């Protein structure tokens, strides 16, 4: 946990992925900034785009999971979002707002997917499986402390938040961007983002209280 907290602490650190996972961090090379990666990707360096994907994968997959229940489908959407972002990279006006731009593309891809799924389900007369019907077995290995049920509960709780709060919570707690960085990415004032975050946090603290108690005990 201490390591995680350290990553959280610095506003000036441009690297948004754990330092150890970044290929250049070991060699004491400065972490390339978003606009440098975008520029490199635009001149055909696909590895630079790979670095962008590494940097924002957690955020994009989390945004997809906040709207799409099926993990495999969310993963597909996250990949498709990155591919779409790649093809439209030249239309990104301000590369320093890359994360905000990616989040918009992801939400759009999710909406498109949900529309298609809904149309398909209507045609087949499909009924959704309630959360309670999911098994209580521990979830996939990456979520060791939480059951599938608890994970779905958290996702649903965050999925119920207004979109601006949902994106903000994911950018803050999953992508580990500070409120200052998020404000820059979304083109908002830091004060606005701080207020939104505390409102969202208050809602989550209340709605997730039973689950937090359960996990603590």
């Amino acid at each position, binding site marked *: 946990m201490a390591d995680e*907290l350290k990553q959280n602490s610095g506003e000036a650190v441009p690297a948004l992925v754990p330092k150890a996972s970044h290929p250049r961090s070991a060699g004491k090379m400065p972490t390339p900034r978003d606009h440098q990666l975008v520029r490199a990707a635009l001149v055909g360096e696909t590895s630079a785009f790979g670095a962008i994907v590494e940097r924002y994968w957690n955020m994009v997959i989390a945004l997809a999971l906040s709207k799409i229940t099926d993990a495999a489908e969310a993963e597909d959407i996250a990949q498709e979002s990155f591919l779409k972002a790649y093809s439209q990279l030249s239309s990104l006006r301000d590369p320093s707002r890359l994360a905000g731009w990616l989040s918009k593309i992801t939400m759009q891809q999710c909406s498109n997917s949900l529309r298609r799924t809904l149309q398909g389900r209507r045609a087949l007369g499909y009924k959704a499986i309630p959360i309670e019907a999911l098994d209580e077995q521990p979830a996939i290995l990456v979520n060791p402390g939480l059951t599938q049920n608890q*994970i779905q509960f958290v996702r649903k709780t965050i999925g119920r938040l207004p979109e601006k709060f949902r994106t903000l919570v994911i950018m803050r707690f999953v992508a580990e961007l500070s409120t200052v960085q998020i404000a820059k990415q979304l083109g908002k004032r830091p004060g606005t983002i701080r207020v939104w975050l505390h409102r969202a946090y208050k809602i989550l603290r209340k709605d997730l209280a039973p689950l937090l108690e359960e996990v603590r005990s």
Partner: protein
Amino acid sequence: MMTCGKYKNLIEKYIEGTINDGQLAELKNHAETCESCREQFERCVLLQDVVKQSFSSPMTAKQAGSSIVTRLSEEQNLRLQPARFSTILYSGKRAAIAAGVLLAVGLFLGFALGRVAESSRIPLTAQVPISVGKIEGIVLVKREGSDVWQDLEADSNIYLGDTFHSTAKSACSLKLGDESMLELDQNSMLVLKLYNGQTQFFLEHGECTASLESPHGPFFISTPHGRVEALGTEFTVKVTDE
């Protein structure tokens, strides 16, 4: 407990991700001795951890990066698209707006300066190629900038800004060219004004008749109620108080 306010601020900073290493260490030290702050801090850490865990994916960021790079190199249809026309338009939007504003200002200034220059080139008191024709009774003329009415004579020069006043049972005619003539009936007042670099005939009240050569260019007589254009060769304009 008095100092807990400071640590509550640090907890807020922790939530916002703006806490630095020193502040975090200080907060942790305090949390060891203060149960209330420890409870709050632990809840924050747990909530963030739960959210993060709930949204993690079996595919790691590194795997995802490699997978995308592989797809980009293998799939031929995944190419960088050139900047779209709409994007170019959007990126030039500010420049276009600025150019539009500059153009509007330029046009306005050009027009205004042109008007000023035009006016300055033709002084309001300049003599115009109009001569006095027939005079019946008493017709008075007043020059621009003067309060003195004078009798209009057959050989009087006509200037811009002149005001003609025909008294009762009087009339006069002004020769505008070889063939054209403007006749001012009794009890009428006509002013020669400058409008867009041209002489404007302004009938304040009374009646005047224009007899124009054929063909003739655009010819107008202005009145307090509007401007009348001559379409034929003869027309009469009458301004009454009714």
